């Protein structure tokens, strides 16, 4: 955008110079009579440009007017009128005023189009008193600008199209936009052809070229006008109950990353990784966040006359805003940030910058070691004691903690079989299966639809959790509640392995209050080229819904295994209060 700004500014400047030239010449000998009709005809053309897609007539209009301008220019060269009447001067003033107004109108319109419009308007009056050379030069400038604009229009159209893909729209709007796009492309083609023909020829031929450019300018406006209503009608394709959960899609948020912000590169990298789900799983997200924070602290330079804690706090807040815009924080991340902030506020006022950084980095390392690594080890031991030889352990999805537990138990010599349950939409379970198989664990893989088939042979269900809520509900990946329910129907014990750093003071009873809407396209079968769902965006009645989380009520969970103890779910508030006093989490 900024490049086009510059370009158009240059052109405006060029146009102004041309105008000046014209004025000077006009003072010498001004056949102003011709100018008035020409101006009058150009003016109606500019408001038409600002209008929306009803093009055919305006095009013809502008064609005529430009032709007449050129005729006038030709005439004016032949006729030399000596005196300047008062009327003529008045007319000139009126014309200038009109041109200014047109400029203002363009400016109020906003967007990239207005910068071009005044330029056209300004160039038109400039024509009158110019020589053939001048006219050709300005026209060349216009042609160059037109090319630039074409580039920008294409970009805008592309953007518009992508937005259209992501956001939802009614059929009619889609059609309208497509039509606009097609016409824009057609016009661009025509213009390009005309240009090729027109360039080498004389100024008389340049007139249609100018028309083409003006048409293009007009086209540049169009995608804007069609985009406006689109924003309003995003309501369709959103499931009513989840309206509050929809946000600009990841693909969009990735585009809006500011390049020249003062965010630390590690933070930006993490943001991209979170948005693109490269880093997923609550432990991984927490560790990645702490790692990025550590790098941020290490490279932080304290502005002069600022207290360390205050300065870093401001920096931290902007970084977190960025990260949370990329993906909603998980409970583990929220807790880690709370912990970091707590230690930041604990720093003494007159602390040395070096010491402060050292303390903070050490605290982060301690948190990762104690809260995640050692806690995982403690849980692994606790669960291992519950696994006996010959067991069939069922687990769902992919969890780093569960993987660790199973691998440790296998390494400790226990003989058991693992049933890995996956779902088609989330391929994580297949990664889990691969890692377990690589270590030689005997595994069974089933889709979640086959749960009833294996549940009667399962002796324990071990689930990972995204967060444990204070009312005892377990926030897990979508499908875990179904698993717990099937286990309950067969009276199979359900153990949820969850470190206490994932305990969260939120309360939730169903999956509607808080959830994340995954990419709806994930529901569509990737192997199927012409999947019947692939054009769901054009069908207002069809909405794929891809939920990320699922809330398991405490009644379906036998126990939660934490590093402190094996507890009933309902003990979550006790653990939280304990942690609050000890860690400030």
């Amino acid at each position, binding site marked *: 955008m900024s490049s086009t700004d510059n370009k158009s500014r240059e052109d405006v400047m060029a146009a102004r110079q041309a105008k000046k030239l014209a004025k000077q010449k006009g003072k010498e000998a001004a056949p102003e009579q011709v100018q008035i009709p020409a101006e009058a005809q150009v003016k109606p053309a500019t408001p038409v440009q600002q209008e929306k897609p009803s093009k055919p007539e305006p095009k013809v209009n502008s064609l005529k007017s430009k032709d007449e301008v050129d005729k006038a220019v030709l005439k004016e060269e032949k006729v030399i009128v000596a005196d300047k009447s008062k009327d003529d001067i008045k007319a000139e003033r009126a014309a200038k005023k009109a041109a200014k107004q047109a400029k203002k109108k363009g400016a109020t319109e906003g967007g990239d189009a207005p910068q071009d419009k005044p330029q056209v308007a300004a160039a038109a009056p400039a024509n009158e008193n110019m020589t053939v050379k001048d006219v050709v030069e300005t026209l060349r400038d216009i042609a160059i600008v037109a090319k630039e604009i074409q580039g920008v229009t294409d970009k805008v159209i592309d953007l518009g199209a992508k937005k259209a893909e992501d956001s939802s729209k009614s059929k009619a709007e889609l059609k309208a936009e497509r039509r606009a796009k097609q016409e824009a492309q057609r016009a661009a083609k025509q213009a390009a052809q005309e240009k090729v023909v027109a360039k080498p020829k004389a100024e008389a031929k340049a007139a249609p070229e100018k028309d083409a450019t003006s048409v293009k300018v007009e086209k540049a406006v169009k995608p804007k006008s069609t985009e406006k209503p689109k924003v309003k009608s995003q309501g369709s394709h959103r*499931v009513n*109950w989840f309206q509050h959960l929809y946000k600009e899609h990841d693909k969009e948020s990735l585009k809006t990353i500011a390049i020249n912000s003062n965010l630390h590169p590690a933070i930006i990298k993490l943001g991209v990784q979170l948005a693109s789900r490269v880093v997923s799983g609550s432990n991984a997200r927490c560790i990645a966040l702490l790692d990025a924070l550590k790098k941020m602290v290490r490279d932080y330079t304290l502005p002069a006359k600022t207290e360390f804690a205050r300065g870093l706090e401001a920096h931290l807040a902007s970084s977190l805003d960025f990260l949370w815009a990329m993906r909603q924080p998980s409970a583990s991340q929220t807790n880690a940030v709370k912990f970091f902030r707590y230690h930041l506020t604990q720093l003494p006022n007159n602390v040395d910058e070096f010491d402060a950084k050292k303390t903070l980095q050490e605290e982060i390392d301690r948190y990762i070691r104690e809260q995640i690594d050692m806690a995982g080890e403690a849980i692994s031991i606790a669960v291992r004691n519950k696994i006996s030889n010959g067991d069939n352990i069922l687990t769902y999805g992919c969890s780093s903690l569960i993987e660790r537990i199973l691998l440790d138990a296998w390494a400790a010599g226990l003989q058991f079989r693992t049933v890995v349950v*996956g*779902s*088609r*939409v*989330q391929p994580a379970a*297949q990664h889990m*299966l*691969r890692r377990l*198989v690589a270590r*030689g*664990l*005997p*595994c*069974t*893989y*089933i*889709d*979640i*639809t*086959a*749960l*009833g*088939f*294996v549940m*009667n042979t399962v002796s324990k269900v071990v689930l990972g959790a995204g967060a444990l809520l204070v009312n005892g509900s377990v926030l897990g990946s*979508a*499908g875990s*509640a*179904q698993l717990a*329910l*099937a286990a309950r*129907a067969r009276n199979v014990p359900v153990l949820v392995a969850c470190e206490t750093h994932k305990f969260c003071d939120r309360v939730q009873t*169903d*999956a*509607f209050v808080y*959830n994340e809407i995954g990419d709806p396209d994930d*529901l*569509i*079968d990737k*192997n*199927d080229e012409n*999947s*019947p*769902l692939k054009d769901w965006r054009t*069908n207002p*009645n*069809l*909405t*794929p*819904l*891809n*939920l990320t*989380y*699922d*809330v398991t009520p405490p009644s379906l969970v036998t126990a939660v295994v934490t590093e402190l103890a094996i507890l009933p779910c309902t003990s979550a508030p006790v653990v939280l209060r304990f942690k609050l006093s000890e860690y400030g989490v």
Partner: protein
Amino acid sequence: MSPSKGSGKDLDDKFIDLIGKFVSDIKNGKLRGSNNIALSMVTLLETIISDSQNATAYELCTAVRAAGRRVAAALPHELVASNVTRRILRAVRDENRAHANQVNQTVEGSGESLQRLVLAAGARRATLGAAQHDLREPLRDHIAELRGELESSVSSVCGQAKEHVHGDEVILTYGASALAEKFLRAAPRTYKLILAEGPETAESHAMAHRLSTAGISVTVVSSASIYAVMSRVNKVVISVSAALGGGAVLAAAGLSAVTQAARHYSVPVLALAPLYKLCPVHATDASYFNALAPPHSALPYERHECASDNVHVYAPMYDFAPPDHITLFITNLGGSSPSYMYRLLSELYDPNDYNL
């Protein structure tokens, strides 16, 4: 199982050829859909009956049962074929009894009384009697009636849609089924449908697409988020593979998760079961009747995880839902509760034919 002679012995070669063609049509996928299978089974048995040398009750019963047994052995999953066989056997018995009554004018038992059910424990042959009438003529009417019933069963099930689906309700359905689709189309279009994709995703998606183009607002969810959305659902509509005698249900894999979630949230479950899907089988879990689909539907072959000997991958085809998970069966005769299914059984089939 008194007349358990070899099945081939009771049938002519031409019938065996016919049965072979019927079975291969189904196996090759030329014949799809339980209703179509039921109809062609009726046609098959009709040919067997009308071309039989001896048309006494005993001969006909033997031939029909032999054909049914053959088909059941070749296609253990097409329970519908066996059900139709039982219906025709029942017709033969009824016809024979009517004749016997005409001759003897002695009414030994009035229709299908409970008493008769209890007393009818004797050998199969005993109920057939010794009468030697030609039953082909009267059976033709019975078969035409049965065919009419089969042809109209889908429409009569769908005709009840208005009684069960109201405006602004949220209906959840699971997987793809022609019957469920017709039922949902027949209901007033103002409801919202949540379609949970079943094990055959492509068909589920195609069904979602068709219903949405028909003007129904469809939300597609994966089979993993059924529990999450169940709390907002007003009714669950499912189509079953077989309705069992005790009121339990056999259906596509993953159904038990749906019915369990529905039960957890006390959401009524409507099972669409035309009477030809009613099986005289009492089972307590799916192990009685299950089959494994090729495992690539769960884990694609190209994933090298499954190359290891350590990995078992299962993809069962059917799932079992106990009677207490089903609120209502919608048959072509109207709605009936699971506890009443046993009674429908005895109205449709002769107790002697429960085992073909």
